[in-house]
């Protein structure tokens, strides 16, 4: 009932805003959108079908890849850190740049759409899978071993089944992401689909079509998110709370040793990435005109006569990007955390708002970005807000779920002393929330970079996102690859930085929640 009222309130707000902005070609109200949908049901249906097909294929392939990666990590634990780091870096590749490259590699057809959809989902499925594949008591593995059976049997008999709830939670996040990936993939030169219609509608000043497509995309995302959530809830009532947990590794006794290990891992993953890049270009026999190799970029940025100028351009763009990303990232985290705290203090509000926040988390950024730009303009405010919004919902959901992890007995203890809600929040619930919060903060890094580059590309025309779009159209592929590498590197570094803070804070604040097996 509460959800229904919430949805109704949103519809009314929406209609009101539409009436207010009438004639400015910014916003179509729910009534016009519904009419458009009814009138163009055939067209929208066909577009939806093809985009759904692309998203579905990408979803299957991406999750399949996640499963293979996760199983590899389980069977070869020594490779875990490296595989995890490389998987992250691949996930951080900016789609503004990967899109055209994939189109060239695939040629006409749905190849790039499916690939981008797969790339959009595999990492968020990989992480919970790694946790889930280990989420079984040690004695179960002893049981298998006591009959003389090895890791493979344990994988089949125990791990693959034990990971299902985690896998399902990952799938839930993956569904909207796959849809987004497919839509953006259609920007690379597709015949048909929701993305194609969206471009057309925006250009044609067809506000009703634009909003109908945005609503449809949002609706489909929410639908799949909720449906998978419902199915998962039925099958596995005890859902894991922390699905994107860090892959814990033994804490080295020595701090210096830990740093050294981190640096070694960074170098190893960097080298692996460069090798993958090189091998992909060479094995695919990709033309050097656009398929630059690591050596070309080294020359472009270091040994070429104009290298300094190239670096300056790149650095300028990076600064612009960071100027938007950092405040947006901080704001998103702070807002998510703050609101979670308020909701925890006043649980009645939360009950109404949380389902809505969970649903809104599913709305793809291609849909939200233009709306926010419309509302806040194309300057810094708009971009920062886009980044913040991208991060806000997942943070809020994670922080709220995390605060619920505070053990009931501890809360009872606080109550028995008549402690205030606020005391309870500060001393019990916030510490209990930290692992979930940091998991969200880590995943927010690639999300922030994705948001800022898409916003720069589609709206503000500055920064690395713009540089990538611009250099792709003017065949300046050296600069395009340089920007791509830099964006990926920045995202990877940001992630590592947050993970480092996480490790230190959790070691201090919540050692008993040390995550993982």
């Amino acid at each position, binding site marked *: 009932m509460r959800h229904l009222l919430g949805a109704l309130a949103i519809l009314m707000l929406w209609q009101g805003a539409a009436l207010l902005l009438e004639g400015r070609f910014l916003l179509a109200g729910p009534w016009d959108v519904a009419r458009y949908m009814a009138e163009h049901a055939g067209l929208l249906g066909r577009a939806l079908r093809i985009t759904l097909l692309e998203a579905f294929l990408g979803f299957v392939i991406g999750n399949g890849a996640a499963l293979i990666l996760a199983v590899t990590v389980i069977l070869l634990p020594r490779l875990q850190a490296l595989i995890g780091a490389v998987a992250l870096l691949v996930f951080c590749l900016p789609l503004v740049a990967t899109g055209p490259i994939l189109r*060239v590699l695939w040629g006409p057809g749905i190849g790039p759409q499916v690939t981008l959809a797969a790339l959009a989902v595999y990492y968020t499925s990989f992480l919970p899978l790694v946790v889930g594949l280990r989420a079984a008591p040690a004695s179960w593995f002893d049981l298998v071993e006591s009959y003389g059976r090895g890791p493979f049997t344990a994988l089949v008999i125990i791990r693959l089944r034990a990971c299902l709830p985690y896998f399902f939670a990952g799938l839930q996040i993956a569904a909207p992401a796959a849809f987004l990936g497919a839509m953006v993939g259609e920007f690379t030169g597709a015949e048909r689909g929701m993305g194609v219609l969206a471009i057309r509608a925006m250009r044609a000043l067809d506000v009703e079509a634009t909003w109908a497509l945005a609503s449809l995309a949002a609706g489909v995302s929410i639908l799949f998110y909720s449906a998978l959530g419902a199915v998962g809830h039925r099958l596995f009532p005890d859902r894991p709370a922390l699905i994107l947990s860090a892959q814990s590794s033994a804490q080295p006794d020595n701090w210096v040793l830990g740093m050294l290990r981190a640096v070694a891992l960074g170098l190893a993953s960097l080298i692996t990435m460069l090798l993958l890049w090189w091998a992909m270009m060479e094995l695919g026999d990709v033309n050097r005109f656009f398929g630059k190799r690591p050596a070309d970029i080294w020359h472009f940025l270091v040994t070429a006569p104009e290298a300094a100028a190239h670096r300056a351009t790149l650095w300028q763009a990076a600064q612009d990007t960071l100027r938007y990303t950092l405040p947006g990232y901080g704001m998103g985290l702070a807002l998510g955390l703050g609101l979670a705290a308020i909701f925890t203090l006043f649980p009645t509000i939360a009950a109404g708002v949380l389902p809505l926040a969970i649903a809104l988390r599913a709305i793809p950024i291609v849909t939200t970005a233009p709306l926010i730009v419309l509302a806040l303009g194309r300057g810094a405010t708009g971009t920062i807000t886009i980044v913040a919004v991208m991060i806000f919902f997942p943070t809020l959901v994670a922080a709220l779920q995390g605060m619920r992890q505070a053990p009931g007995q501890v809360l009872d203890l606080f109550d028995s002393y008549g402690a205030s809600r606020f005391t309870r929040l500060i001393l019990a619930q916030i510490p209990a929330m930290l692992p979930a919060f940091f998991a969200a903060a880590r995943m927010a890094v690639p999300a922030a970079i994705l948001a800022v580059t898409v916003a720069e590309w589609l709206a503000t025309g500055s920064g690395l996102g713009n540089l990538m779009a611009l250099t792709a159209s003017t065949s300046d592929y050296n600069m395009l690859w340089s920007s791509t590498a830099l964006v990926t590197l920045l995202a990877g570094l940001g992630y590592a930085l947050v993970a480092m803070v996480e490790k230190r804070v959790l070691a201090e604040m919540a050692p008993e929640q040390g995550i993982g097996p």
Partner: protein
Amino acid sequence: MTISPISRRHLLQAGLAGAGLSLLGARPGRAASAVNFQLSWLHSVQFGGSYIAQSKGYWADQGLEVTLSPGGPNAPVEPPVVAGTALMGISAADYTAAAVANGAPFKILAVAMQNNPFTIASLPGNPVHEPKDLMGKKIGMATANTPVLQALCEINGVDMSAIEIVPTQYDAAPLVAGQVDCLLCWLTDLPVAMTMQGIDNVTMLMADFGYAVHSQTYIATEDSLKNRRAELLALLKGEVAGWRDYKADTDAAAALTVEMFPDAGLDLATQKLQAERQIPLMFSDLTEAHGFGWWSEDTVAANIETLGLLGRKVSADLWDRSLLEEIYSS
């Protein structure tokens, strides 16, 4: 996952090229040779002549099976041509020049748009009729197009610093919503969209004020020009025939476009208007005299000058008229 265009081309060169057969199209029982033609944007009447060539069999008659690959906001146009996944592509002189500067061995084979479609669109209440009117105005455009505006200002002696550039997405909403005074766009899309929505608008075609950059140019690599000449010739022949029909009846071209791409979300009335507006860009006294796609030394010289203002140094041999000459001499 990777298709390997280059190795495919090696194979071709190794044996099949002489027979004029592409490996891609060598389907059993069919003599037709299949080629991929890379368009520069989503399907619309912008490429109406090509659709006519396709549907009337102007290509099939010559034993050519053509795939028309659409572009998009994040679609590569030049790379597939360089890589050989597309035999021919539609580019523009400035993009082609940039690609050549970055090592692409392109030649411009024909010019579909004699006049560049870049336009300053404004509203009648606050119109831009000539470049001088831009001073003191807010212009909405992609920052990527700054050099275009710069060139226009330089040609017409307008002080660029008096214009405020507002980065916008490529849509008309900011102008209609009053966020900007004018837009840098194509004559054939946003102004058409506004007209269709019942919004009166004023357009100033930059080509009328000295901005000479060939647009919708047909490009291919030097290698293809040498080794796949027959296919290129057939492709262009079909284009010439298709655009001849297009000029004769733009409404039919618009109708065909909507019919061929029911999933593209095209509106017939909009397509008709766009088709009509495209005519003066594509057909001129020059094409009247020599045929579709033609250019003269003079227009190339003007292009080289404008491209110079855009920071692109090119020479006249970027344009290769040999295929057109072959078509029109017979």
